[in-house]
């Protein structure tokens, strides 16, 4: 295979594999920047993937699926909020509980409703988000260089991929250019400063979790309606945790988090390509090594050996108004 084409193919799948990570990482960003740890991205994604596939199965509309996915994820985010904000419960325990709960509930309901061992029925094309062909992509495909780039990389992704990449500047804009973003960032750093400015921390954090729910719902919907054509048991397979790692790797900022997602997506894409390939001078790179790299890199970053990931100061601390 020509090197450029190979590269284009790897980058193409990098984009597709990164898209759900980006959405989930942005989801986590809202929660964590407001001061609430979210290790429940995995569960929210999985729940959304199931709800989306189910709704799309019954209605035949990907939009109904997206709405259901977002709805499920928002509901889970609100439960997290009820435990962590209202009852000041342990944020890690709550997130973990939701992850386990969702992995069980989706399996139970899936088997009961569809009787296909936990899968939802294969969705027809019109019930999914299909690749969008950009104008002129087909004729340009054979033009080397620019043509390949245009037709393989830019064109031919489904709507959700474009949405994911559009979400990054949007979130950055919300975070740094709007009143809500300013207050959100302040809530995660020094909640007292927000409360003394006359703003309710509780309401603010619930709103942040709503945003988390929406973005995570999109990420989950992507998995079952765009990447695949059905829901499969535990189909998130750790993507929620990878997104969390990317969020930390990106130091809780939208663009760096996106770059981390792209890096992790690229690693994933190459891992698939590298299987059984002898690299000159290196030999065969074990695919597991590449798969573990995101986690290893995150640990190294957390250890402060390469830069320092400083979390929002109030992250994980339940807010008590009375001092």
């Amino acid at each position, binding site marked *: 295979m020509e090197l450029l084409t190979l590269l284009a193919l790897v980058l193409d799948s990098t984009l597709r594999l990164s898209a759900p990570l980006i959405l989930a990482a942005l989801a986590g960003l809202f929660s964590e920047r407001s001061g609430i*740890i979210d*290790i429940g991205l995995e569960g929210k994604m999985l729940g959304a993937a199931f709800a989306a596939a189910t709704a799309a199965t019954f209605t035949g509309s990907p939009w109904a699926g997206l709405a259901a996915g977002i709805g499920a994820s928002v509901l889970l985010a609100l*439960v997290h909020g*009820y*435990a*962590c904000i209202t*009852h000041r*419960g*342990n*944020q*890690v*325990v*709550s997130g*973990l*509980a*939701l*992850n*386990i*709960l*969702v*992995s*069980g*509930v989706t*399996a*139970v*309901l899936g*088997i*009961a*409703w569809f009787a296909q061992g*936990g899968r939802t029925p294969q969705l027809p094309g019109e019930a999914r988000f299909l690749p969008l062909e950009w104008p002129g992509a087909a004729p340009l495909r054979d033009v080397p260089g620019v043509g390949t780039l245009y037709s393989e990389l830019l064109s031919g992704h489904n709507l959700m991929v474009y949405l994911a990449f559009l979400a990054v500047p949007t979130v950055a804009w919300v975070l740094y250019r709007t009143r809500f973003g300013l207050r959100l960032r302040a809530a995660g750093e020094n909640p007292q400063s927000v409360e003394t400015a006359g703003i309710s921390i509780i309401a603010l954090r619930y709103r942040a979790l709503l945003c988390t729910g929406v973005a995570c719902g999109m990420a989950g919907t992507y998995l079952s309606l765009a990447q695949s054509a059905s829901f499969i048991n535990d189909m998130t397979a*750790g993507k929620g*945790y990878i997104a*969390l*790692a990317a969020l*930390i790797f990106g130091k809780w900022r939208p663009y760096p988090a996106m770059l981390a997602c792209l890096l992790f997506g690229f690693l994933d894409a190459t891992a698939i390509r590298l299987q059984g390939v002898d690299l000159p001078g290196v030999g065969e790179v*074990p695919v*597991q*090594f590449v*798969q*573990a790299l995101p*986690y*290893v890199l*995150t*640990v190294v970053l*957390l*250890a*402060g050996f390469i830069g320092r990931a400083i*979390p929002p100061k109030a992250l994980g601390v339940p807010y008590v108004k009375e001092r």
Partner: protein
Amino acid sequence: MSIVATGPAAGLPRWAVLGLLPALNLLAAFAISGLIVLLIGENPWEAVRMLVWGAFGFQEAIGYTLFYATNFIFTGLAVAVAFHCGLFNIGGEGQAYIGGLGMALVCLYLDFLPFALIVPAAVVGAALFGAAWAFVPAWLQAYRGSHIVITTIMFNFIAAAVMAYLLVNVMSRPGSMEPESRDFALHARLPLMHEALGAMGIDIAASPLNLSFLWALLCCAVVWVFMWHTRAGYRLRTAGASPPAALYGGISPPRQIIVAMVVSGALAGCMSLNELMGVQHRLVLEFTAGYGFAGIAVALMGRGHPVGIVLASLLFGALYQGGAELSFEIPGITRDMVVVIQGLVILFAGALEFMFVPAVRAVLLRSSGG
């Protein structure tokens, strides 16, 4: 993480904190599980009846229940020991997995040893590898301030990758494509309980329950002694309850973090004895099957005390075994229902632990006032 009820529950009588609140939380978890059973069109009461019968209704069932409980005891103890030092060890899954590697290395490559030596060697291998896998996040937390929740999550995934690599590329059975090791030698296996008892003339039904169950109970006793009767346990609990008080008392909190996590990892590693050395007799992919995470539910339910952990492990063991029977009898309800219950127990007994405190307080006040 509060195992001892302070904070919101302060002032409530002991029986309410240790008995009533956990019971209410458990009840809430089961009530919602019941709703889900209703949602899929089955009868919750029938399901409960079937579940209890499946877990305790016949000898073999009890054996299975205890077999599953053994896994929960190990991972539950692991989580509890870390809790007592104020640490959240989410890495039980990875520590158990790597512990299995240590144990398998002994069983596969030291099998020239006789049975009497290979069993303790396997225990040491499991504990040592599990401890080593917990040591790194512990050290990073103690001396570099890296959040142990995140690092242990990452280490779970790294463990999965390491084990997948080893099982596919290094340790796989010669001539086989299956990601599993060759079988352990016959003398490198733990005797099953019915065999052991049979040899002593006591007849019980065959089940995977094996001698590691006794080791689990012994671990409970050891943890109890360690935690509440040794200076090391005292130091660990002091550092967990109040780092400034520990410093005042000449105890180094970072060192206690290391001790707690190493003990925790060693206990998690021992889970592999039951699953692999007891039953599977070879190293297989993903044998931990979520027991590491379930340990959190067990430790929360058992409020960090070995007796509570045994009781909670019995409960979860019964759910696993009863759930399996249940899915035979009522195909609509699968074993995943148990995962649902687990998640709900962690939610209600953990994150929403104090949800019922205001209600309980109000009722107690009214009854004592009137």
